[in-house]
């Protein structure tokens, strides 16, 4: 179970690590779009837009519905929420650890004096 989720989270972080892909997600936040719409919105080739879209799909961040020849893309924010939860967990973990590190080191200095 854990492994599946981890692979997913990995894909989400890789997908979110690129500015073009983040821009695609931001664009889809306003409304669903066809692949060709997205290609028009960004100054890159249809081919590279397709590659970015595939990465986003693999991460589960996009849903694709096919009607005839049209592929309509929509945003699926759930994996992003999971990634955010991971980050929040570790933000709080490290904040608390650094506070404990401070206490430890200052105590040690005090005892030495």
């Amino acid at each position, binding site marked *: 179970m*854990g*492994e599946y*989720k*981890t692979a997913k*989270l*990995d894909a989400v*972080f*890789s997908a*979110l*690590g*690129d*500015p*073009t892909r*983040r821009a695609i997600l931001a664009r889809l936040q306003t409304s669903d779009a066809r692949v060709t719409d997205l290609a028009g919105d960004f*100054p*890159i080739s249809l081919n*590279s837009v397709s590659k*970015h879209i595939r990465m986003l799909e693999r991460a589960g961040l996009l849903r694709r519905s096919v009607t005839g020849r049209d592929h309509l893309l929509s945003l699926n924010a759930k994996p992003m929420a999971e*990634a955010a939860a*991971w*980050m929040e*967990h*570790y*933000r709080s*973990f*490290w*904040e*608390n*650890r*650094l*506070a*404990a*590190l*401070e*206490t*430890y*080191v*200052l105590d*040690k*200095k005090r005892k030495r004096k």
Partner: protein
Amino acid sequence: MNAAAPAVTPSATAVVVRRTIAAAPAELFDAWLDAEALAIWMRPDGIRHTSAKADARVGGRYEIIMQGDEKTYPHHGVYRVIDRPRRLVFTWISHGTEGCETLVTVDFLPAGQRTEVVVTHEQLPEAARESHTKGWTSGLGRLDDFGSRSAAS
């Protein structure tokens, strides 16, 4: 490739936490590599006891076992960069990462009489994981190429 080539920006995928502490960089740095010290400050709320082992050399393994009331939370990883007292980089594997290898970089920045400790915790994209392994096997135990190895992260 071109302008759209993937550039992994840590800001979007990494947790960055900072704290300025009234101690010298070396004092803080050493507390990360000393098993006795780790056992004390690596004990979050709800953890009754932490035990730690640290083989403090590049390529050496550490283990931090946090014992809760009902569950045990093992953490482990390998030191990638030990650049005392400036920078420490190690992998981090735990229940929180669901057994997946992640990377922790700790920078110790002098700030007058104090030190700013910056922890950057990131998931490793697949590509970076590969290059790490390569950089690893080729320069094992060499202490003078820290810089180049950390640039690969």
